[in-house]
């Protein structure tokens, strides 16, 4: 990705509801083959944060992350999904820095890495795949049950609103965001699935039909600390009226995804929960 203009235009009235200049600096990672980086950056800006481009080959990842308050690993086909979705990106030097900043994976038998004091990290779609490959989150993604790429507006239930990325939602709230993937079927062994359910780590669940065969209708999960979240559908495509999914208010007016980004901005502003 070429450098983005990440500054908010200093116009408009930010004193009331709406975007607030919070000073939250949120990194958006670009690997070769990343596709939704510009969308994720736009979502951060619309949520009142500052989006900071993060290049996968950043020579000093730890230094780059030190000035950031959160990181988003966006969707796409990093390294062409060669070998397996996320399998190569996981070995980018920047990922080591992200894993460390999120709290590491040491001592986690089920891959539930991270720590409460760790950097908030969100992986969307291919980003989620990279997080499971990195063992920050457990489980894995295989091809959709239909074996086809599927793009549709998808209803999700927010099961856990205690994470850094979901605190602006109410528990049980249903939101509509676009889903688009080829390898979106979430799988894990029964023990891991039971643990995710038992500890309330299932963060988003598909409602109104399981689009890809994911175990227990899981669309997104978090780690125990709540700073790392992986999500298969795309909240960054539902942040701006006119360009999101259809909603009750009208065509393409859906902005349910914005809550993910305002949540992390609020988490940053309000400190750890």
């Amino acid at each position, binding site marked *: 990705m070429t450098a983005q203009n990440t500054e908010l235009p200093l116009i408009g009235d930010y004193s009331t509801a709406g975007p607030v200049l919070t000073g939250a600096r949120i990194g958006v990672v670009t690997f*070769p083959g990343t596709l939704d980086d510009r*969308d994720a950056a736009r979502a951060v800006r619309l949520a009142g944060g500052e989006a900071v481009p993060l290049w996968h080959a950043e020579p000093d990842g730890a230094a780059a992350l030190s000035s950031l308050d959160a990181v988003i690993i966006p969707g796409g086909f990093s390294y*062409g999904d060669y070998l397996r979705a996320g399998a190569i990106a996981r070995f980018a030097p920047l990922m080591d820095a992200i894993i460390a900043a999120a709290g590491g994976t040491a001592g986690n038998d089920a891959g539930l890495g991270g720590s409460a004091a760790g950097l908030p990290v969100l992986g969307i779609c291919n980003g989620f795949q990279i997080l499971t490959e990195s063992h920050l989150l457990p489980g894995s993604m295989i091809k959709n049950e239909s074996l*086809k790429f*599927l*793009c549709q507006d998808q209803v999700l239930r927010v099961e856990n609103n205690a994470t850094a990325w979901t605190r602006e939602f109410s528990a049980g709230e249903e939101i509509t965001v676009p889903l*688009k993937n080829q390898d979106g079927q979430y799988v894990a062994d029964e023990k891991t699935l039971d643990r995710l359910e038992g500890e309330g780590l299932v963060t988003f669940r598909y409602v109104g039909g399981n689009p890809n065969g994911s175990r227990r209708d899981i669309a997104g999960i978090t780690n125990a600390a709540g700073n790392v979240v992986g999500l298969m559908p795309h909240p960054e495509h539902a942040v701006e009226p006119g360009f999101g999914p259809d909603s009750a208010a009208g065509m393409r007016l859906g902005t349910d995804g914005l809550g993910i980004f305002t949540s992390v901005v609020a988490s940053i502003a309000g400190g750890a929960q």
Partner: protein
Amino acid sequence: MTTGTQNTPPADTRQFNIDTVEHAATTPDIELPWAELGLKQNEFEEVVKILGRRPTAAELAMYSVMWSEHCSYKSTKVHLRQFGEKLTEDMKKDLMVGIGENAGVTNLGDGWAVTFKIESHNSPSFVEPYQGAATGIGGIVRDIISMGARPVAVMDPLRFGAIDHEDSQRVVHGVVAGIGGYGNSLGLPNIGGETVFDPIYQGNPLVNALAVGVLRHEDLRLANASGVGNKIVLFGARTGGDGIGGASVLASESFDDTKPSKRPAVQVGDPFAEKVLIECCLELFKNSLVEGIQDLGAAGISCATSELASNGEGGMQVELTDVLLRDPTLTPGEILMSESQERMMAVVNPANVEAFEAVMATWGVEYSWLGEVTDTNRLIITWDGETIVDVDPKTVAHDGPVYDRPYHRPAGQDALEADRFRDSAAGADLPASGDALRATVLELMASPNMCDKSWITSQYDRYVGGNTALAAPDDAGVVRVDEETGLGVAVATDANGRYAFLDPYAGAQLALAESYRNVATSGAIPMAVSDCLNYGSPEDPEVMWQLAEGIRGLSDACLELGIPVTGGNVSLYNQTGANPIHPTPVVATLGKFDDVGRRTPSGFHAEADGQAVYLMGVTRDELDGSEFANLRGHLGGVPPQVDLAAEKLLGELLINASRDGMIDAAHDLSEGGLAAALSEMVLRFGVGARVSLDEIQGRDGVDAFTALFSESQARALVAVPRTEEVRFKDMTTARRFPVARIGVVDVASGALEVQDQFTLPIEELRAAWAGTMPKYFG
């Protein structure tokens, strides 16, 4: 010579009998395989005349591919000329780059420009549907990048054989997965297209691909090699043996038994390589590191070197052993002809070489410096220092053969025109009762051509980029160009092969009329046209007549509507044996929005409850070539009347109504007529409507059946808020455009109700409409 990576193949792989220019001059009588490479005798003789000697094997390879129909337009040049001749000053005012470059460029204002082009990838998609369709996307996207633009959207007009033919399983699954697999991986939203099923395309499916790109005026790049001493660089994927036209012929020339004898004629795509190439090129443009750029598509290095040199002022010198190869056994001729994907060639000022290499390193893209621009006016290609090509590049790229092929009106055309649907056996016993009309609407909406195509479009990413304001199934695809102002573009593609079969001249005009209408219906102002002319063999005088008539019709219509053709593509020889496809001129119209926020939805939203539904335009008894006639197995007569003045006026009214907030929904009438348009508007958001046909029947003198299924042109349906009705009526009255208030949007009804005829619950309609594609394709 510097290369991006080490590329010295082992010595034993270079044991070719290199046919140098020197060798050619001294061996005039060596038999050359020009016929196998597709050259005609007169063409080969012309090459010998131009060179003053026999061509070398490498030169023969270049001339044969560059003089092919696909690259040279030799059968259509004399006709395509009309697109350039029928241009007014007004049509040229926003045209920054016209026909002849990789893609046309249109000024959007505010320093922005848009480039778009449609191309065919028909034959490869039949042979190998997945890769054929995938590389179709790849090729058109590289055309867009070549102009200095960021690609922002793709579209795919598709035509398949019969839906229930067993081979359609292979072709449909493969093509759709290929388009999705490649396009989705590039991060380009797929915003529309069309899908038609007709047995006429059984052995010749049409896979057309359109791409749209946007650029700042200062980023515009052209394909020319200028500036003596500037460096020539080839970058992107390595060159392999895929896509070589006459590979077996050339391979047999090398007398080398160790090399693979069969190579795929269809190119293999790697979308990841293309995505990286896109970002890499955009960074080159942003930093002004290339003087000229050309993508490698058909005819590969032959095309890129000869076109760059021919468009420039001087000549070019290239060392072919510096090309990075996937297969070190390739001969010079094969390297020149290879159509390996994801490659670009650029002209770089020596001062920028280091910066260029830094960009390549950032994106991990391989490159090799092949040579430089010279002042010799010759394209000279060497192999290990020995000259194997020494030609005037213009004779290869631009001054190829031109044929004014004979054509005549088909002997059966009069009989075809006389075979009116109403008078045919198929036209007897037309549905008249409410129940029969209801059943016919269900049958129509479940038919292969009218049914829900979300089985296809849900395999494409329409969201990526965050700028998609409208996508299939809306009338046009709409993308935002400028996030600050909302400036954006709309694109729609259309063609009706049945209409064009009945009347090739009118058929091409009707294709333009519909795409123009679709763009205007979305609320955008039509600005430019790109066309993909899919026809049979030009060597058949009757097909040639269809083609000549199509080009004449389209160019006349563009002149009348005042929008220029900015580029496109001709695809010929789409026929199986002596049976050509229907002439299928796919026309893409591009329109402009000052603010995409005012695009008009194509269906009734619940928010539009109680709004008045108006039918704009006049309904005539026009069923020849219609979807209804098609359902009854009839094709004859004359297509609907073309009325471009009415189309233009309708367009202006729709655009004004959208801009001034007079309408909350609009949908054009085309295939399937009013019945299809109403059904689609109701299905879009699942909101019903109550309409009456009385006023149309009375005013236009047609019966209920004709009112519902006639395909008269220049019509649209709109939903008008109560508060806007007076203004809307005043506007249409002042412009003398006929409108009829036929009903209201009715959320509570949950149905499409045609008063005194039938009531069709939306869920029943949806089940019929949505069930067809999954029934055949799973």
